[in-house]
């Protein structure tokens, strides 16, 4: 496919993603500990989806039936999605500073009954994938032409439930289900290849009957192209394997397994944000 995004649009997305990263680092830094690594690795995927791809997303009507939906099955990345939803206007940005505090609407893992804009409750890895397939099936039954987007982790892909869902979605030809694997190659205890190797992950999903693509998960044009192709094929559920970097944009944590649930001070957050904001957005491509 040719270019679908002009330079200005690309630049805009990069600026938004940078703001989302800033807000996420600050949100978790304000509390002092949290899942920063897995949150930052999905920021570009979320940014593309919410600021360019997803349709009928209306902060005033978060449960609009016809909207595209998103299930963040790796629910511990919730803080990144909260930053996106705040930027979209689902709730005031000040909420971000209540993350994980008693009585908050923004718990560490996504909660559809607490946070406006969250489409499904997640946190127990694997479960969000089946819920997403269920949502996609519901839209099909209701003849609603919407897409359900699903984001899973690579460590999460070790759960058997992911593969039970994979067979189901292929059987029911859920072409309205577009999934992303946040393939940052890390989980809590180290690299996925050292713990339980995913092997040829593209071949696995293909073997399960999915339409499979592989892209750089920090490249907006490649991501958008993959989404368009996924929509265009119209036959199978889609898996977009995204090569990503855990803690992307937080220089002292980037690419480290220890970024998974990391403690850092407000001071460190401030420095990280200064560094991030000083970077030239254009270079990120």
């Amino acid at each position: 496919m040719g270019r679908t995004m002009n330079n200005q649009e690309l630049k805009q997305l990069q600026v938004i993603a940078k703001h989302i990263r800033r807000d996420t680092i600050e949100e978790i830094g304000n509390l002092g500990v949290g899942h920063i690594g897995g949150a930052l690795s999905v920021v570009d995927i979320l940014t593309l989806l919410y600021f360019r791809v997803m349709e009928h997303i209306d902060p005033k009507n978060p449960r609009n039936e016809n909207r595209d939906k998103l299930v963040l099955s790796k629910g511990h990345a919730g803080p990144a999605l909260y930053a996106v939803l705040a930027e979209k206007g689902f709730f005031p940005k000040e909420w971000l500073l209540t993350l994980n505090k008693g009585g908050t609407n923004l718990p560490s893992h996504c909660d559809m009954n607490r946070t406006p804009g969250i489409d499904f409750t997640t946190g127990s890895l694997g479960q969000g994938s089946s819920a997403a397939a269920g949502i996609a099936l519901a839209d099909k039954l209701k003849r609603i032409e919407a897409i359900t987007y699903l984001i899973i982790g690579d460590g999460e892909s070790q759960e058997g439930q992911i593969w039970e869902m994979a067979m189901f979605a292929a059987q029911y030809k859920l072409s309205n289900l577009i999934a992303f694997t946040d393939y940052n190659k890390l989980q809590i205890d180290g690299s996925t290849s050292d713990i339980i190797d995913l092997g040829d992950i593209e071949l696995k999903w293909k073997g399960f009957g999915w339409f499979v693509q592989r892209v750089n998960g920090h490249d907006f044009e490649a991501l958008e192209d993959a989404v368009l192709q996924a929509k265009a094929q119209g036959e199978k559920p889609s898996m977009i394997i995204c090569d990503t970097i855990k803690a992307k944009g937080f220089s002292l944590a980037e690419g480290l397994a220890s970024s998974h649930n990391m403690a850092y001070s407000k001071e460190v957050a401030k420095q990280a944000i200064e560094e991030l904001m000083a970077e030239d957005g254009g270079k990120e491509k």
Partner: protein
Amino acid sequence: MTDIATMKDFRTIYADTLIELAQEDSRVVVFEADLMSATGTKHFKELFPERSINCGVAEANMVGIASGLSSQGFIPFVNTFGCFATRRAYDQFFLSANYARQNVKLVGLDPGITAAFNGGTHMPFCDIALTRVIPDLVVVEPGDGWAVHHLTKAVYAHQGSVYVRLQRKGNPIFYDANQTFELGKGIIVRDGKDVTLVATGAVMLEQAILASQALEKENISAAVIDMHTIKPLDKELVLSYAKKTNAVVTCENAQMAGGLGSAVSEFLSEQYPTVVRRVGIQDLFGEVGTVEYLMKRFALTAGQIVQEAKDAIKRK
């Protein structure tokens, strides 16, 4: 082994005890599901790389594999957060580990509100209820650092599967080095004659002790029992204190339906009907927050125990 009382966390005591056991017995194997960093068994892995098995994020599979290993004579200690240990792998634990009469030691970390910042999805409130209904299973929750060390050894020595609720962080100490611990035998932490506080786990044992001190100021003499083994319940001890005080308050960092409160009530209502009040989670889901916040939110405090104790005494 270094002085237990000076150690930082329950998990360090637990992990060090596993090393001690593994040094003596080559059948001891540790299982993790991508939470080795949380359990703290990295050092175990360095010492016994072959006997440290990381299954990745796949708890049901982990419990199944451990059951197979057990059938070949190994003694697997299987670690993950309590929510996943019980809810996620329940059928595997029920059938492959227990119905098949295997010797699997399942350890559920971060019981009840100690899951804190991980929030409602990660908060095992119902794990006691779920495990207590598995025939012959032993269900344990150590209340202090010494208990973690000695009960881990007792769990190892027990022939049969066990579920251990293990708080990870902090090392509250209520006993001294000479205290002995036996599975199925509660400990009288403090004697008393007006009411008996039966507590399990570190959070509630501490609150029960604080409550007994507060009650003492009001001239109410409260006994405190550490019921570290929830199943089999120490019926003899419960009965003798029911007879002695005629009022019982159970205290648990868990859903009280099906939990310690149920176990004590079920037993007493049949054997020696006694006024029982229960402190615990009251049919609610978990939430995110600090442990201190959650204790207030779910009324797991000394103040609540005091109130229930007075109420129980009134109803005698």
